[in-house]
């Protein structure tokens, strides 16, 4: 508890004990008034002061005003014990609320706390602990086991396993070694790394994420705006209603020649004031959204505002980019077709050795498939023929690796297949060795991700891609998406999104998921833009509303599930507190609810709403 909360806590204890003691003293009249006045002032002096200040500053209708009027009114009518109790329970409720909110605030900020405190800067071989802010681009920093990587950079020396879970929600650690790029915010779990920084702290991943998260609660959802507008009219309306209950019936009764029963109607009016306190709504809704955002970020999903959480829950159309979003965006050897009498090993080895000097994506995929270190000495007389391939000598034997055109040029007989991808033919010593297929491969879990979206109420999953129709259709059938639009230019993608936007029903939303440079316009055009974070370009992340840190398309459905849970909690809280309040208000007006029920309707409802709101923080898969 904070100092402020502790003070209130002790005031509650003292006042509660005094109320019990005073209740046991058998006095009447003025003595009883003074005796109850002591605990009342102990517990309520700040509320009275705030109410008075509020009136002074022309800010009349707030909670303090309601409470002050209700309790002072109770005292005026001789209901000393009830008046004190109302104030006491109100303070207990407030204390609980501030404690619960403080606690979840702490939990959520702890989840998001990835800020590195220092960097070990290497100056002339000596290490010096400095603020990450002070490290310039191109400096060398040392990261020891257990420390956070403070800035983005490239590993110059050392190898280590790093934990990226704070950024990506991915619990599997990653192996990195010399030459790899690392992003700030990861925790080094083993081994010492020397990193050459490539970005300043301000520009580093960790700072950008922190900024996103900190600003996320600034963008308010429609439910939140509804509540503020609601509270603005609600409190004054209730005050006037209570005034009417206090004045009208007695005046009517007086006019009809009956006894006015002032006390009875005033007590009813005061009870209504206690019930009406809007805090359950006002507090629990931002708390639910904040919890939802926190819960999502624990899963590696950054949501840039509560309004986006709201839109996510209404998403009915998901448009996806192909390369890098549903597929890995990297080429891999997908099939090998050696000629008769040739082993797969020989085919792959020849291709890999021939291409080992090059950094072309296709060469890299061949080397990756081969997997072993290649001695470059084995290669000689390399000749690259643009648009065809390579001819060279492997261990002194002439060889050629390339496409159909190269084979025709060399006058080789070759075969081909109907599979999707790039065909690489290999020739060695004048003999055709066979054919390798290289293609972009679908991400693991992409198929489940599409199915999961369908289960989450998405009507259509549409794939948009600049790739060829053949490649796009192959991926589409594999993943079971509803529609494919291929061979699109970036501007065509925007048109496609607009066509869907025009087609959808009211209240339905369209999401676009992408990663590439040219996705930024589409990301901002859709109702909600979702970017793949770790691999995606900065521009895409900037333009997106939701960022998936680990590039897993399955997280789209997770994000939607979290958003629907959060919105569900918000709705429950709105309905639950309004129903109880209005029921009690109605019953209060006709005298069926006494002061004690009124206290429950206020404090009890608020406590329940806050507890319900904290559920938003927890997300369980499945």
């Amino acid at each position: 508890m904070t100092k402020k909360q502790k003070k209130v806590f002790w005031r509650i204890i003292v006042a509660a004990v005094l109320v019990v003691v005073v209740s046991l003293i058998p006095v009447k009249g003025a003595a009883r008034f003074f005796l109850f006045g002591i605990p009342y002032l102990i517990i309520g002096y700040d509320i009275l002061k705030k109410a008075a200040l509020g009136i002074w500053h022309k800010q009349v209708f707030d909670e303090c005003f309601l409470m002050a009027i209700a309790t002072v009114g109770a005292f005026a009518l001789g209901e000393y014990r009830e008046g004190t109790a109302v104030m006491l329970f109100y303070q207990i409720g407030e204390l609980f609320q501030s404690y619960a909110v403080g606690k979840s605030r702490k939990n959520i900020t702890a989840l998001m706390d990835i800020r590195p405190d220092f960097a070990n800067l290497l100056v002339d071989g000596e290490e010096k602990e400095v603020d990450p802010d002070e490290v310039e681009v191109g400096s060398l920093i040392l990261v020891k086991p257990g420390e956070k990587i403070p800035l983005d950079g490239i590993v110059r020396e050392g190898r280590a396993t790093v934990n990226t879970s704070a950024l990506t929600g991915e619990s599997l650690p990653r192996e990195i070694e010399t030459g790899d790029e690392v992003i700030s915010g990861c925790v080094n779990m083993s081994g010492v790394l020397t990193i050459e920084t490539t970005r300043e702290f301000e520009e580093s991943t960790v700072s950008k994420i922190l900024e996103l998260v900190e600003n996320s609660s600034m963008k308010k959802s429609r439910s939140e705006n509804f509540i503020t507008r609601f509270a603005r009219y609600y409190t004054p309306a209730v005050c006037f209603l209570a005034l009417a209950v206090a004045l009208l019936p007695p005046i009517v009764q007086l006019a009809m020649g009956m006894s006015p029963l002032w006390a009875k109607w005033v007590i009813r009016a005061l009870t209504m004031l206690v019930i009406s306190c809007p805090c359950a709504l006002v507090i629990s809704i931002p708390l639910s959204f904040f919890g939802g955002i926190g819960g999502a970020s624990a899963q590696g999903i950054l949501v840039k505002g509560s309004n986006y959480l709201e839109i996510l829950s209404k998403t009915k159309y998901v448009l996806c980019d192909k390369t890098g979003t549903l597929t890995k965006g990297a080429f891999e050897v997908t099939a090998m077709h050696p000629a008769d009498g040739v082993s797969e090993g020989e085919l792959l080895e020849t291709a890999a050795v021939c291409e080992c000097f090059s950094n072309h994506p296709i060469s890299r995929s061949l080397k990756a498939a081969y997997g072993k270190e290649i001695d470059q000495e084995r290669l000689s007389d390399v000749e690259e023929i643009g648009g065809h391939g390579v001819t060279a000598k492997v261990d002194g034997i002439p060889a050629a690796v390339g496409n159909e055109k190269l084979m025709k040029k060399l006058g080789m007989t070759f075969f081909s297949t109907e599979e999707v991808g790039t065909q690489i033919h290999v020739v060695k010593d004048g003999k055709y060795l066979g054919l390798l297929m290289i293609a972009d491969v679908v991400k693991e879990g992409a198929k489940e991700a599409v199915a999961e979206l369908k289960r989450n109420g998405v009507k259509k999953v549409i794939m948009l891609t600049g790739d060829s129709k053949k490649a796009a259709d192959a991926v589409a059938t594999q993943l079971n998406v509803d529609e494919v639009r291929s061979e699109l230019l970036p501007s065509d993608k925007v048109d496609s999104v607009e066509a869907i936007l025009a087609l959808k029903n009211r209240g339905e939303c369209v999401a676009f998921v992408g990663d590439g440079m040219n996705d930024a316009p589409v990301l901002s055009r859709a109702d909600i833009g979702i970017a793949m974070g770790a691999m995606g370009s900065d521009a895409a992340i900037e333009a997106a509303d939701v960022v998936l840190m680990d590039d897993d398309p399955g997280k789209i459905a997770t994000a939607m599930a979290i958003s629907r849970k959060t919105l569900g909690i918000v709705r429950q809280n709105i309905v639950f507190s309004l129903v109880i309040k209005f029921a009690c208000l109605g019953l209060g007006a006709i005298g069926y609810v006494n002061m004690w029920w009124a206290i429950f309707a206020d404090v009890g409802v608020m406590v329940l709403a806050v507890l319900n709101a904290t559920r938003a923080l927890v997300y369980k898969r499945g």
Partner: protein
Amino acid sequence: MKKTYKIEVDCANCAQKMEDAAKKVAGVADATVSFMTQKMKVEFAEDVNQENVMQEVLKACKKVESDCEIFL
């Protein structure tokens, strides 16, 4: 020019009131208050003395919610 300030406020409704009050101060182009993160983000109009404006913002906020604090 945007700046973020740490604040202390006890209730969500009061945070909203502070936001409304801050928006009305001369020299403030826009303001948002987040109750959950206890932060106030102020976008200043051009060519204003930010310190003076913030003093005014603090005064305006104290008026609507006597129990609040902005750490300037």
